């Protein structure tokens, strides 16, 4: 079990006054924080595998359109839509990075501000994605139409479900930052949800490439 957080300061080598120095990072200032962040990286490994499997399945069946619409037919009319989604999500990852930076500077107010902006961008992304799905379904392109569309909705939808969970989760952490202030525990929690958020961004880059760009090519 974790040693009391005040007891252990994991100071490492380097200049202790630098803010980049891990020992000065609030989220790494306790053994508990270090272990939990390590554990979360391991969770991300399993999530990478989950998405890898969905991608592999999509690649196997994305030409199996069974007389339904193909990727080219669907996405060609929607380039501005998925571009906007991409912009919203990539920007939100950047603002999430800014939030982390402000946290390392110890500026709790700006941290919360950037978190709110990140959440708004996340919601924008989600709104765009729901609109896109709604459009496709109203054109008759449903999950039941073909193996390709089963794969598309499942892969992109799983990412969307992750984003939804991320928004709920980050809101919960924002509440805790407001309620309890910035300390070793809330810092660790924000840092972890930040890792999750960046991870979703990387997965989206792959979806953008493998699903949408390959689709309209």
């Amino acid at each position: 079990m974790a040693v009391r957080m005040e007891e252990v300061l994991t100071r490492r080598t380097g200049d202790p006054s630098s803010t980049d120095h891990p020992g000065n990072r609030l989220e790494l200032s306790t053994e508990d924080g270090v272990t939990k962040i390590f554990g979360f990286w391991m969770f991300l490994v399993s999530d990478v595998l989950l998405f890898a499997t969905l991608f592999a399945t999509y690649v196997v069946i994305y030409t199996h359109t069974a007389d339904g619409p193909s990727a080219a037919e669907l996405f060609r009319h929607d380039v501005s839509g998925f571009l906007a989604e991409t912009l919203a999500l990539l920007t939100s990852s950047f603002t999430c990075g800014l939030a982390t930076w402000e946290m390392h500077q110890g500026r709790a107010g700006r941290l919360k501000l950037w978190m709110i902006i990140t959440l708004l961008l996340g919601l924008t992304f989600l709104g765009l994605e729901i609109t896109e799905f709604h459009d496709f379904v109203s054109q008759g392109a449903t999950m039941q139409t073909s193996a390709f569309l089963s794969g598309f909705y499942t892969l992109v939808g799983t990412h969307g479900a992750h984003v939804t969970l991320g928004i709920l989760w980050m809101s919960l952490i924002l509440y805790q930052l407001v309620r309890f202030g910035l300390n070793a525990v809330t810092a660790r929690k924000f840092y972890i949800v930040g890792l999750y958020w960046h991870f979703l961004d990387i997965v989206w880059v792959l979806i953008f490439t493998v699903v949408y760009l390959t689709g309209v090519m």
Partner: protein
Amino acid sequence: MGDSLTNTAGHFFVTGDPMIIASDVAIVLVSLGIVFTLTYFKKWKWLWREWLTTVDHKKIAIMYLISAILMLFRGGVDALLMRTQLALPNMKLLSAEHYDQIFTTHGTIMILFMAMPFIFAMFNAVVPLQIGARDVAFPYLNAISFWLFFFGALLFNISFVIGGSPDAGWTSYPPLTELQFDPGVGENYYLLALSISGIGTIATGINFLATIIKMRAPGMTLMKMPLFTWAVLGTCIIILFVFPVLSVALALLLIDRLFGAHFFTMMYGGNPMQFVNLFWIWGHPEVYIAVLPAFGIYSEVVSTFSQKKIFGYKSMVASIMAISIIGNLTWVHHFFTMGAGPAVNTFFSITTMAVAIPTGVKVFNWLMTMYRGRITLSLPMMWVLAFIPNFALAGATGVWLAEAPTDYQYHNSYFTVAHFHQALIGGVVYGMLAGMYYWWPKMFGFKLKEKFGKWAFWFFNIGFYVCFIPQYVLGLMGMQRRMYTYTPDMHWTALNFVSTIGAYLMGIGFLCIAAQIIHSLVHMEKDLTGDPWGGRTLEWSLPSPPPHYNFAVIPQVSDRDEWWERKRRGEQDALKPRPEDIRNVHMPKNSGVPFLMGVCFFIAGFGFTFGWIAVGAAGLLGVLVCLAHRSLDQHPDHDIPADEIRRTEAALGRL
């Protein structure tokens, strides 16, 4: 109205079959018995406080162990029913449909609800003690893992009496398992029960990886770690890499069934072979997930009972890591007949045979450890000795199956059945029994008496060969697996009859183990030494069972077999705490939320099984509430004052 209600109830509660009615009666009676006993002895509060809410890895280990033994019983009864049905030609004991359900539940239970909790019992009982830690890295998550396994297993088992069991084999291949060909809820039970327990398994993998990487006592470098802990590390790496693949495969099939998607259908572009690939990308490494911890146990037991340090420690570590990597590259050998072509089949033939190299290294190292050792033939060691010829035979027949051209001959035959039972019983079950006997005194504070144990050993071992050797021959004679009956003119009768006798001998062996446990409980001999076998690693330096904080003072490690070396140098008292070194210990608080989260998952699983989306969604919402509750908990842990620890240690005679 009344009729339609009876009809619906008749579909919901499986009726008509005498065996199922007997099970209904048994379930009601056992449940009433448990409720009565708990009420009569006023044990409800004790059950909740000490067990259902515990986050102590040692108690979680005991709960895993009890579940594993119960599931071994259920899976064993399934096996005996099948063997009885096959004992003679044209038997009518089971209907074809019922036989399908029984071989499906037998396979699924034995792999996922018997072998997995058994290895997790060993993980939990041993790893934190071996590495000198006070608990696992995430004790609360550990409790969640257990309850997800428990409620997954419960969901799977109630299918027998509510709605109907899955009947498409433990591999559950589409398109047979698509809604069109397999209506009813049995298959949904399979998919959801495995998904729920699978989440728990991934969490366990992450938990023990973090425990082993981050929680080792000072001085215990990776190359000073006991081999069981190394084996657990390798296992957790495999779990982390393959269980997500199973989760996805199951989820996609469920989406097909519940929402009419077309991943694996025969129409609209679905590709059933994709499921088969995904399933075995998990399914083959699952064999190593189950067997690596057993290899770890063999290493500990051989070394302790030969009173020698393990031969070739570094090559043992290297072989564990090699198996955990090469094991991921072999899955296609389960379906060489897919039609992937000679190049693919050759690749997977070679990788499969390559696994034999690190495995062989391990077997030679165990033999060399025994060579010139002072061997004590106690029960754990006997199971290790019985394992070696068994596994050699499993390896030899495995190489036959690994060669693509010969596999075309044996594919889906009884030869395959005999081979994988030899590997999984000879490798995993023998290992888990050796581990159970070896660590029982550490877990419970008393030794199991040998009396019935030796009977169990001989019945089980002789029964094992009598049961499975005929099946190799039956396979070569053309008997296919999953056949529910055969005619006398196939000339399979004699061998099948002998095989059935063997199965019953193994059943008697199991009963002897049960008798042994009960007998030892009644005539209990407390182990006061904490080190009844002359152990080598840190867990034996503690009293049995250890106090809930394990180590009053975290030990400083300098050698590979730390406890053995200390004993050799006469310094064993140095591992006892000194009063002035004892500080407050920070420990997690018990919590009922992991249990409730399991209940929520169960409700969700049950809802989706019957296609009741609202119930399923309500269950998942409950899970989210549990997660949020934990996140908002400001005081999940507490301090045990140093004085209290001093009192506990003094009472244990360690101060």
